[in-house]
């Protein structure tokens, strides 16, 4: 959970830096984003979900694993302190939803970070080096693309144990492909700009050109893509957890809670509905912000 806060604030800071920094494109984009009411509302809502997930468990007298056979399938109620009700063994759903949210968000952010590092490095290298190297690197991506990855990930977690680290690695290994493709395309465009030629004429080496000129210009599209990858990864984790292949008890995540809720829905529908709302709202906010960012950085669409 600490990781979740840290990378989150890093992202916000990067956005603020892009917004306030001397670069007018960033400031323009930030202004356009602020004008986008839906995106700003999503940002606020998402911050709210993040805050709830972080401090929520401390606001409740219960914890996420203790069972209470005197409080089975209790409906949501403020009086009992079970704000979201209880499950089939009397565990408090409010605390479980919050702690599950920590895992879901952490998986989303950490894994996206993994895929970001791999994808940007791979894509920028392929795009910048070009020629044969590029076509071989991209051919490899094409081949990986056409493999049924979901099945691999399922096999991986089934056969090699179901721990969080493996989950990061497995999902990260899948989700860098899109990032690599997009970064490569953008690098190709940037590379053909006259200022890169000028830098090369001035005697800058490859590493310096990539670090100084290519990567900063990739920032916009990468920020957009990160906001769109996080919900995909959260979705992926929930998918695995729903199948019982992700986070293992007593730990939980939104996907795992929805899975539990599905089997109890006829007697205790809140077990299905509440975690579903949290998952859907989070995904929705990320998607809306990503969309808003894309429009803000590339205003020709609106």
């Amino acid at each position, binding site marked *: 959970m600490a990781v979740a806060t840290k990378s989150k604030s890093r992202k916000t800071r990067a956005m603020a830096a892009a917004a306030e920094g001397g670069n007018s494109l960033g400031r323009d984009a930030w202004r356009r984003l602020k004008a986008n009411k*839906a995106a700003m509302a999503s940002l606020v809502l998402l911050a709210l979900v993040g805050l709830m997930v972080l401090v929520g468990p401390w606001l409740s007298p219960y914890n996420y694993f203790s069972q209470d056979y005197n409080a089975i399938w209790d409906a949501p109620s403020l009086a009992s302190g079970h704000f979201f009700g209880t499950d089939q063994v009397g565990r408090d759903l409010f605390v479980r939803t919050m702690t599950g949210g920590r895992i879901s968000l952490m998986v989303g952010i950490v894994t996206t970070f993994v895929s970001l590092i791999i994808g940007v490095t791979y894509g920028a290298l392929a795009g910048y080096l070009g020629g044969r190297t590029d076509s071989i690197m991209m051919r490899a991506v094409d*081949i990986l*693309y*056409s*493999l*049924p*990855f*979901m*099945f*691999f990930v*399922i*096999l*991986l977690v*089934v*056969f*090699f144990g179901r721990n969080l680290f493996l989950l990061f690695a497995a999902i990260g290994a899948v989700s860098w492909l899109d990032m690599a493709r997009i970064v490569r395309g953008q690098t190709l465009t940037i590379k053909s700009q006259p200022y890169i030629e000028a830098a090369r004429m001035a005697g800058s080496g490859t590493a310096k050109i990539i670090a100084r000129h290519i990567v900063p210009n990739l920032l916009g599209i990468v920020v957009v893509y990160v906001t769109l990858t996080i*919900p995909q990864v959260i*979705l992926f984790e*929930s*998918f695995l957890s*729903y*199948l019982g292949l992700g986070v293992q008890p007593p730990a939980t995540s939104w*996907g795992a809670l*929805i*899975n539990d*809720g*599905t089997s109890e*829905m*006829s007697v205790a*529908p809140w077990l*299905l*509905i509440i975690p*579903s709302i949290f*998952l*859907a*709202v989070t*995904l*929705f906010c990320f*998607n*809306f912000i990503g*969309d808003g960012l894309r429009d803000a950085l590339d205003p020709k*669409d*609106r």
Partner: protein
Amino acid sequence: MLSYTIKRLLGAIPTVFILLTLTFLLVHLAPGSPLDSDRPMPAQIRANLEAKYHLDEPLYEQYGHYLLNVAQFDFGASFQYKDTSVNDLIATGFPVSLAVGGFALLLALVFGIPLGMLAAVRQNRFADYAAMSGSLVGISVPNFVLGPLMILVLAVYNNWLPAGGLGGWQNYVMPVIALSVMYMAYVTRLMRASTIEVLRSPFIRTARAKGLSEARVFFVHVLPAAILPVISFLGPGAAAILTGSVVVEQIFGIPGLGRFFVTAALNRDYTLVLGITLFYGIIIIGFNLVVDILYGWLDPRVTY
């Protein structure tokens, strides 16, 4: 065109090969054995079984055997379902998955394409905002949320549709919708973006300057260009629908290939897991090939 098809078919062979090798290694290098169970097994029986499934051979020999069998489209015998071949299991499970997945893809296209076009034509007006917000909701509601919620409302509270299993067409309604919604939303967004881009292109202004009817401009000039990104989405989209059906089949208790896969993985049914992964891999590769050829046929600028 023919030479391109042959070239692509040949190019797919190494991909299938890599797929096969990776899956094989993954399955066989994993700790544990499909013969492990809660009850201890007499040594003699275990040895017999290992011999039957070639598990007593060195890995490279097993690999060789498997390769040879797969080359003859024989995926071997299942560990879990005794006396049933993987081929038989695929033959029973796939038609069911195909029906659910195929209808879901069809539904996504039939609704997504017109919705996206409508949103583009009415850009920044009510219909656009409605379609775009709707599609963002669609993208944000996973099938394993939508599926159970539909069961709750349509089957548990109101007895309108069967909650699961396979019988008549009623059994397909909820799974197909649950699987389709997210892709419908994708197609809508894709179609909107590409239509807007095409509407802005100079050749559309030319078409209008020629005094053609709006219908002719839209259906003859805009549509063929705007639909191309949706065509290229079909490849990855179909793959995603196939994998998505894994969870949908689980939710609705549909005896399809996705459900077989999950139980096979959990029971370490090596041959069935390998067989299904390979089978789906080949289908996805094949589908991508068809989509690429279709794309080339629709876009005259693509040369082979």
